[in-house]
């Protein structure tokens, strides 16, 4: 196994996430996709750390740890927002939330 395997896998996963974010209209699915992208980035961090010159510094895992914590906070706030949005618009469909669009 080499670093490249992991990098390509991470790129693939990131793009799957990106595709979800671009092509789905349900806000919760978009949130899924953002999570997938974040996780792909985390995989990159860990892979770089594993194949780095000086793994003892533990930069990769530490950064990933922080990223996971931030992502958890993001999911919590994101879902709370989604519920607030749902309360307002009665839907989580992104295309029907268009009050800012000029008619």
């Amino acid at each position, binding site marked *: 196994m080499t670093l490249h395997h992991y990098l390509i896998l991470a790129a693939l996963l990131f793009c799957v996430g990106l595709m979800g974010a671009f092509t789905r209209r349900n806000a919760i699915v978009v949130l899924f996709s953002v999570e997938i992208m974040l996780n792909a980035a985390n995989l990159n961090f860990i892979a770089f750390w594993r194949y780095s010159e000086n793994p003892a510094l533990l930069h990769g895992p530490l950064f990933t740890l922080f990223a996971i914590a931030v992502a958890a906070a993001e999911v919590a706030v994101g879902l709370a927002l989604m*519920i607030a949005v*749902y*309360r*307002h618009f*009665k839907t989580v469909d992104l295309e029907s939330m268009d009050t800012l669009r000029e008619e």
Partner: protein
Amino acid sequence: MSSPTATAPNYELIQQDGLETSLLEVSMGPHHPSTHGVFRMDVKLDGETVVDLQPVFGYLHRNHEKLAENMSYLASMPFTDRLDYFNSMTNNWAYALAAEKLVEIEVPERAEYLRVIMAELTRLVNHISLVGFFINDLGALGTPLLYAFREREKIMDLFEQASGARMMCNYFRFGGLRNDVPEGWLDRTREVVDRFPDFLDEYEKLLCENEIILSRTQGVGCLSRDLAISAGITGPMLRASGVNYDIRKVDQYGIYNRFKFRVPYTDDDVGDCYDRFMIRMLEMRESIEILKQALRDIPGGDIIGKAPKIFKPKPAEAYARVEGPKGELGFYLIADGTPKPYRYRVRPPSLINLTVLRDMCLSQKIADAVVILGSIDIVLGEVDR
């Protein structure tokens, strides 16, 4: 079916602005493990909270009253066993009392004593198994229930020795009892009665201080004194709501005036499941006192009075009631001079106590609804008749 006086707060669903929460309608029963028979509760739930509850019964309707109007007086005696199949003895007694009122038969002394003994044994059977079922509804794994059934078994054996059947005793007759108890029966009864308090001690130790039972039952299913009175609640449930009313004391039917016993009741106007549970526990001790006195004083002699060979009362009407283990059990008879009653009516305590179910369950949790139903102590044979 709503109760006559609904004083429970009118529950409004918390409609959090915008977030639509729909009510969950659950039809509990008729084949639900803890509806005590074929009884159904249509429950509307907001989360776990009961918002509305509709009791549905009649699955066990057997046309008891109409049947009785088409057969001789004596022939409905075995059918009264099947009303509240836990307490066939008290059912028999109430019916026999009503018939005896119609034709005014004297009951011999020994029969009266035996009737009291049987009725109080029945009360023990009913209360002990009710408490067992009640704790089962609270979620215990049948341990208290099986202890209760172990003791119940001993009393059932006594019933079988005396009457030939364990549950459907059919033992009372107009003017007395069907047959005398066999030899040695009184001694065996004394033994059972003397041992019963030991069991009760153990049982109280197991249940009465258990923190989980306390917190599950206190403040749950409160029935206020006013509602209890206006809904016609009787029996231990009424006494648990703070009314001191016991037909054994009020009417003093049979020979209850000869016995010294106390009636436990509560003073505060709470009437929750814990009160109903504890009142029954305490009543058992008083029943034992009555039994001890009766077994001490019982005389010899006949067991059936001079009853007419063909029971054909003159046109009259009679209502007789007893303090059944579940409440006031009454039989109302109208005779029209034929061997069959013109009108035959049962006042079933289970049914009338059940009418306040909705008021007690509203805004409680779904788990409490089961517990409250358990604490009412219904038998569907009596509710549906």
